[in-house]
């Protein structure tokens, strides 16, 4: 099997290398890939949409359909992860809960699952006997708000600097995953519970398609942001920039919710009781 795979890979590689003899020189400004559509985008991006970052303006305005279906693909991935792994009522064995008494360091194991004595002195830990890490908890507690502010900054400044909806959404999700790793999974779930995550992931796609339908109601084409100038007090060029901002916010919300859903379901095998 391995020899057959090696022969197939070498044959495929040889065919592709033979095909590169037709390529233009690397970095040539007159190559055919650079001549047909992209000069229009480079020249007219600021004049027609008012946004200097050409990648964001092409992604959210000129080719907005593709981005809408990509958001739908992310939503479907989150949904299928939830449907594959989630187990709701498993009562095969009673594992019990572990609590650590902070001043002395003693770990207490209760055999029942529904004991809750969390307060200043008792702390819930996962059942794999996690050691007590003051440094990790304190550093995590300091860094998480700054990571969230940075994520919001990246979403909002997608028009003028590298960034946009996807990157900001992933950074926001990374802050909640950091919370779940430094503390435990139940703390993270108590901050954002499962129902909120489901609603948020659908809300992101809904915002995107909703802005498109709003343009349809204002007698334009689908996702034609210029017609939003009828209800917003700005000119048609600025309305396109504002439509792009709204769409990026929708994408960011959807990506954040789906990344958190996938992490929680993989790290706890669907039972939502303990994590990494």
């Amino acid at each position: 099997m391995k020899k057959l795979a090696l022969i197939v890979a070498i044959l495929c590689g040889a065919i592709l290398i033979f095909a590169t003899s037709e390529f233009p020189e690397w970095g040539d400004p007159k190559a055919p890939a650079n001549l047909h559509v992209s000069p229009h985008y480079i020249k007219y991006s600021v004049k027609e949409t008012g946004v200097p970052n050409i990648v964001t303006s092409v992604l959210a305005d000129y080719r907005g359909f593709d981005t809408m279906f990509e958001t739908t693909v992310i939503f479907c991935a989150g949904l299928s992860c939830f449907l594959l792994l989630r187990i709701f009522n498993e009562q095969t064995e009673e594992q019990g809960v572990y609590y650590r008494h902070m001043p002395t360091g003693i770990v207490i194991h209760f055999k029942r699952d529904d004991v809750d004595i969390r307060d200043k002195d008792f702390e819930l830990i996962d059942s794999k006997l996690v050691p007590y890490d003051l440094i990790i908890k304190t550093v995590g507690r300091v860094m998480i708000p700054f990571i969230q502010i940075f994520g919001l900054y990246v979403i909002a400044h997608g028009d003028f600097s590298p960034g946009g909806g996807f990157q900001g959404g992933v950074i926001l999700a990374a802050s909640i995953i950091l919370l779940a790793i430094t503390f435990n999974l139940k703390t993270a779930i108590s901050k954002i519970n499962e129902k909120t995550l489901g609603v948020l992931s659908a809300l992101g796609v809904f915002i995107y398609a909703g802005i498109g339908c709003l343009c349809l109601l204002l007698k334009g084409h689908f996702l034609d942001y210029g017609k939003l100038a009828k209800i917003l007090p700005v000119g048609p060029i600025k309305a396109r920039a504002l439509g792009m901002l709204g769409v990026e916010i929708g994408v960011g919300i959807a990506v954040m919710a789906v990344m958190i859903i996938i992490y929680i379901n993989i790290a706890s095998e669907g039972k939502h009781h303990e994590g990494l």
Partner: protein
Amino acid sequence: MWILDLIILALIIVCAVGAITIKDLLGTAILLGAYSFMMCVLWAIMGAVDVAFTEASVGAGVSTVFFVAAIFRTTRRTRD
């Protein structure tokens, strides 16, 4: 600066070959994270800053965490 490009490409190929040869799945996860990060640096050199930003946050961040979480729930050893 074609020397820089060549060095980073050589590192990428070494990381890729190492990631599929190691018998320990945790080493594979770390090497995959290093491979993603080297790709991000190469794209930033070529001027694709948006793509490099996305790959740094998604490939070297969240994807490595998913991989380690999946290994935690299954086994860590592999036979080949």
